[in-house]
């Protein structure tokens, strides 16, 4: 099945280092706009975890031509929804606006991204909010588990060792000049991808993007940061007590692989066979459905340019943590040993292929699909090939992928919550 066969025909363009992709969907009133900037954690200078997010959030606090309040009012005048999220490799401005407002919305976003004020008072506001978020996460079991897991899995100075919120000391000490330098080098100096999906004519959308982002510089991009390969050499486990909580949040994980690696699609299928879904994956079915040990249980594999987290997450009563973990590892050994039936693989493939079709129901779903393909340059025929790629993954490839990445005796395990019971 060709994913794009019915719902959208993709049109592409470029403005300076910004690549633009437009997926029109007839009959919709709105447009989803995803602007991915190659300015996530991977772009942070060594030892400066948090600079990417501080910069990204400060972009939305006023420009060279209007202050923060005026920019915010202009955005709300359009009724647009917009947010900025920073991840492993990219910072994404996600927005949705009514179709006739797209040119005005893009002008506002371009103003923020290309000509931010980065005014000291506004940077202080972002800093104070970030410090509050760090404080809040220090007593949030999911936040603590994520921090601990990263500390176990990645070596010092690796860009993924810290959470995108950053290192508290870096957040406290970052200067406005540092943020301005990051903006110039990593945002203006790199490429980006703009995906527009919804009720728009491609020519109009491309023209709006071109007009809004015409000042984005062209030419060679800043060289990417070189990051040595990391490894998890032994099983590592750490539990941190978070006071006055009733549930433990658990992260069991490994280092993944780049989205551009040919083994990534088999890895996605392997993830589904193992633990991605509560009902369609082996470990989820046993831990939640058969043993009733967890309300939430799932695994994810990050699509990044590096070794992103490949993790199983679960919320478990402290007295059940060890049983849930042993059960999960037992299911992993079944995958590693090839002891799973062919029907498990077929179910995983059916689900992943079926989800592609369901994603077509929403402009956000289409935009996410296009963003991944454009960001990692998966090829003009990606949409025609992707479902077949998923279908063609063999049982041997699943076993081989698990043996390469999901070792039962070399993992990082973080537990955060009440004291664990014996």
């Amino acid at each position, binding site marked *: 099945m060709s994913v794009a066969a019915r719902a959208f025909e993709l049109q592409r363009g470029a403005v300076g280092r910004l690549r633009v992709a437009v997926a029109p969907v007839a009959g919709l009133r709105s447009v989803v706009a995803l602007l991915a900037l190659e300015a996530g954690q991977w772009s942070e200078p060594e030892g400066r975890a948090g600079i990417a997010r501080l910069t990204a959030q400060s972009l939305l606090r006023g420009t060279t031509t209007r202050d923060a309040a005026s920019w915010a009012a202009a955005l709300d005048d359009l009724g*647009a929804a917009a947010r900025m999220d920073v991840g492993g490799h990219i910072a994404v401005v996600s927005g*949705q606006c009514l179709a006739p407002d797209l040119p005005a919305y893009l002008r506002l976003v371009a103003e923020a991204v290309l000509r931010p004020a980065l005014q000291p008072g506004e940077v202080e506001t972002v800093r104070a909010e970030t410090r509050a978020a760090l404080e*809040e996460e220090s*007593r949030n079991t999911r936040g603590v588990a994520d921090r601990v897991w990263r500390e176990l899995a990645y070596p010092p100075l690796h860009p993924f060792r810290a959470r995108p919120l950053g290192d508290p000391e870096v957040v406290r000490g970052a200067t406005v000049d540092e943020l301005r330098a990051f903006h110039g080098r990593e945002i203006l100096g790199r490429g980006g991808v703009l995906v527009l999906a919804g009720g728009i004519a491609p020519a109009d959308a491309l023209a709006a993007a071109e007009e809004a982002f015409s000042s984005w510089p062209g030419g060679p991009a800043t060289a990417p940061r070189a990051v040595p390969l990391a490894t998890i050499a032994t099983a590592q486990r750490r539990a941190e007590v978070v006071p006055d909580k009733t549930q433990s949040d658990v992260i069991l994980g490994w280092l993944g692989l780049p989205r551009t690696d040919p083994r990534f699609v088999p890895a996605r299928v392997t993830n589904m066979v193992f633990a991605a879904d509560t009902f369609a994956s082996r470990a989820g079915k046993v831990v939640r459905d058969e*043993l009733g040990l967890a309300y939430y249980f799932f695994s994810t594999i990050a699509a990044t340019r590096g070794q992103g987290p490949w993790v199983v997450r679960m919320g478990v009563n402290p007295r059940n943590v060890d049983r849930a973990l042993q059960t999960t590892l037992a299911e992993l050994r079944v995958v590693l040993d090839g002891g799973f039936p062919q029907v498990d693989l077929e179910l995983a493939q059916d689900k992943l292929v079926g989800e592609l079709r369901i994603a077509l*129901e929403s402009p956000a779903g289409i935009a996410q699909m296009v963003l991944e393909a454009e960001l990692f340059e998966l090829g003009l025929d990606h949409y025609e090939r992707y479902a077949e790629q998923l279908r063609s993954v063999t049982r041997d490839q699943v076993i081989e992928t698990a043996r390469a990445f999901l070792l039962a005796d070399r993992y990082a395990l973080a537990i955060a919550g009440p004291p664990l019971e014996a």
Partner: protein
Amino acid sequence: MTTQVASPRTSDAPATRRLDNGLVLYAAEARHAPVVSLWVWYHVGGRNEVPGTTGMSHFLEHMLFKGTPAHPKGDLDRLLARYGALWNAFTSEDVTCYFETVPVERYPVALELEADRMRNALISSEEVEAERTVIVSEREGYENDPSFLLGEELQAIAFGRHPYGQGVIGSKEEIRLMTREGLFAHYRRFYAPSNAYVVLVGDDEAEALLDRAATAFGPLEEGEAAPLVRAPEPAQHGERRTVVRRAGGAVPLVQLAFKSVRATDPTVPALQALAVALAGASGGAQEAASGRSSRLYRALVATGLATEVEAGAGLNKDPFLFTIEATLRPDGDHSAVEARILDELERIAHEPMPAEEFARVRKQLLAANAFPSDTVTGRSFRLGQLLSAGAAASIGEWYARLAAVTADDVRSAAAATFDERSRNVGWFVPLS
């Protein structure tokens, strides 16, 4: 300033059919993707429970995934997974709802699964025991969140008589006491065509969607009429307050909940606009850039008193709450934040809203209502949600009511709602 937002197309008005067994069907076409989103709504939730059985509707929701004689446990999950379906269920104070968004050629199967579990769920003792720990785990996950803990307390003090005060999930003690017999009786009492309705939106003609649904649900027996809820909440005559002090959170919270109206009240659209005027239309997390022109954002977040603020008006069957929540900085001052919120509420209730501000609020309100309708799942959910408590008969009607709100309607709704006598205030105070 213009505030043009295209109204929903006339095809958004659903086709309807009432079956002989009392089940009402609603269907609308959405042709932009080859999927159908099917939602089955039951008129049962926390509102239908009495002390000691709180959480029963939610527990039952979990049991509807545990098999029928025709589709043993695992069948439904496996089939829907194979389709790549988007599917889930939820329970609220008023309703329990199940949904599947599936490829268009599979929706007859989804209908058959839903019709089957409407009357034939097994609810075995073994599965009740296995699922009990999952539900306790769900509850424990919520308890890790200070906002949930405070909100639960606040709802409890706001309602002295009405079951809304009990919440939805129930206490761990109640969850542990629930029996298979009690759950099954609850199921037979409330899960019947005459106490439900079905919404389908998707890539087929509306009449065809109705025909398929009628084929699936038509043979079911009507069932007995569900008992009415008769627990009106007496008027509140003075402020009520609660404080939660726990170590399980690092940042202080302030929540306010004012007694409000039911979804059928003519002022409900104005209350929706009021929430947008106070805190924007899309939530107040730090990553959000929209909503920063709102009154409480400017008063609390832009001034450094808080990091996030949200406001909302429920669409409920019985008079519910208008809520405001502010997340303070770690060293934040509850009293200062509460006082500032009350100042802003006083202003919006008694001073005319400038035309420019109202135009901005109106645009956000209408756009925020348009966005979800651009997904098949969102459109189907929205229609069902409006029908659940009688807020509107269609998305188009709801849009028209929102579009008709005036600045003075917003001020009047604020004046009627923000009364000290119907105010409930909660503070979450972190312990070090």
